[in-house]
């Protein structure tokens, strides 16, 4: 541990290590804190917050798929006001970096949410969800629209001095075009990828297994897709990338950094092993020691591709 510097910087945000708990997989931190030491982790991203509380989608919300799961939670959340009042005090007690994820149905609403939250010192950066596949107004239509992503990035950036990350949808033909637009409009980094749209049907009832019909696919099943998308962004843009998608262990995390991620988020694995972040941390330290890596940030984008 003494010989490895695990700290990373993503578009102006310093983290003590590159391990971040992904939005929607840790609530507001209180439940997972029973199983893991949040103080050891680089950061935590809140469940997507919307201006008003949202009840979320009716059941069935999740279904398991081969090495993955589909979810259509529908952005169930307490809303910005209650988050500030009820959730922030708990999160303040931890020595980890808090990133607030925002979901909205209009450019103005994104800005309004950020305005309400930006003076909370404990929030160090914003992650803007333009890619929730599970609600009509969850931003997926923004996530598919280059102009909209540019406009949201620009407006949110204008309203806060804190770093702004845009969480990109993989359900587009060229994700690197979106990363470029984020960069051009002042975004500090991109989080890639959000879930892939998928579905699953019961062959006897012929009904969809989740009420919303489609859901977002996550877990190790999507890791190769996530790696390809991160690599594509890395090869076409110099915007910092927070890699997300099916990371289960430290080896997966190293792979994600090699293809271009400056930091990474773990999501679905938290449901199965809520202490995965700390285990990944220990694995990364050993990997760096064994491979004589002094700063973990040296790993980012070091893929060796022969022409």
């Amino acid at each position, binding site marked *: 541990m003494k010989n490895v510097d695990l700290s990373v910087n993503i578009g102006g945000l310093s983290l003590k290590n590159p391990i971040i708990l992904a939005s929607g*997989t840790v609530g507001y931190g209180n*439940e997972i804190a029973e199983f893991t030491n949040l103080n050891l982790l680089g950061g935590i991203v809140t469940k997507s917050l919307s201006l008003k509380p949202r009840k979320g989608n009716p*059941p069935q919300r*999740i279904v398991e798929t081969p090495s*993955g799961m589909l979810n259509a939670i529908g952005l169930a959340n307490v809303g910005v006001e209650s988050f500030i009042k009820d959730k922030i005090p708990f999160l303040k007690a931890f020595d980890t970096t808090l990133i607030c994820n925002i979901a909205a149905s209009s450019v103005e609403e994104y800005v309004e949410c950020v305005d309400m939250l930006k003076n909370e010192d404990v929030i160090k950066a914003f992650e803007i969800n333009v890619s929730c596949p599970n609600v009509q107004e969850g931003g997926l239509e923004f996530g598919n629209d280059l102009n909209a992503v540019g406009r949201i990035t620009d407006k949110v950036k204008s309203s806060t001095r804190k770093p702004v990350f845009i969480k990109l949808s993989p359900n587009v033909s060229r994700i690197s075009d979106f990363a470029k637009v984020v960069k051009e409009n002042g975004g500090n980094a991109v989080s890639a990828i959000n879930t892939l749209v998928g579905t699953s049907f019961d062959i006897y009832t012929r009904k969809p297994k989740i009420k919303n019909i489609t859901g977002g696919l996550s*877990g*190790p099943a999507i890791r190769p897709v996530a790696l390809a998308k991160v690599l594509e962004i890395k090869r076409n843009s110099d915007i910092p990338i927070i890699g997300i998608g099916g990371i*289960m262990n430290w080896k997966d995390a190293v792979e994600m950094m090699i293809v271009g991620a400056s930091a990474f988020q773990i999501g679905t694995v938290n449901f*199965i*092993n809520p202490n995965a972040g700390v285990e990944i941390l220990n694995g990364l330290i050993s990997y760096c020691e064994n491979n004589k890596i002094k700063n973990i940030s040296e790993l980012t984008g070091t893929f060796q591709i022969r022409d």
Partner: protein
Amino acid sequence: MYIEKAFVESLEKMGEDTFLIKVFSPAISCIVKPGQFCNIKVSENDYPLLRRPFSVCNVDGDYLFFLFDLHGIGTKLLSMKKNGDSIELLGPLGKGFVYDDQYDTAVIVAGGLGAAPFPFLIKNMEPEKNIITLLGGRSKNNLVTYGLKNVSAATDDGSEGFNGNVVELLKSRIGEISSGKFRIFGCGPNPMLKALQEYCIENNFDCQISVECAMACGFGICQGCPIDSAEGVSYLLVCKDGPVFNASQVKL
């Protein structure tokens, strides 16, 4: 709550497709309460990916028992465990039964594998409480009486006991049951629980139900197991707010 690697002590076939697994789990066994569950990882690789929630069926010293039916790949793998193999438990999870206050008779109403949480509940009941178990199943081969007490059966095909479902059996016995102060504890498939819930609400009976639901994490972070609250304003989570609810608390 713990994440505990538990070694398999025994696996016993209890019925056609029903098994009882006994595992060494000293950390969880000493704090678990009746009606709580564990989320179990049955394999060490990524398939199947998610844990499976199982009611704690019984506790004996450092050992936990889980009763399960063959259902899919997860339970198939669980049924193939050998002595000395391990499974990984996350638990104990959820809110269990409220059972040690003022009433004379505990009426257990179980449908099929809904019997799973009751051996541990029965074991923990004060000895002076009268216990009646009504156990329903499709036919006599589906009735697992492990750990139950004073069992009356109901089968859909009439192959054993009362010919009909378990809620009908309850109705037929209610005269005798309701002569004293009683509480109903129900667990089973959703349609059965719904019938039980309606009957208990109509008659103002004291009733707790244990609800089954697919879930990912089991402790509140995935938000995958919502259940409508009776007031309908917000969802409750089966994993955290349940799995045991007061019958009047939720909409099934």
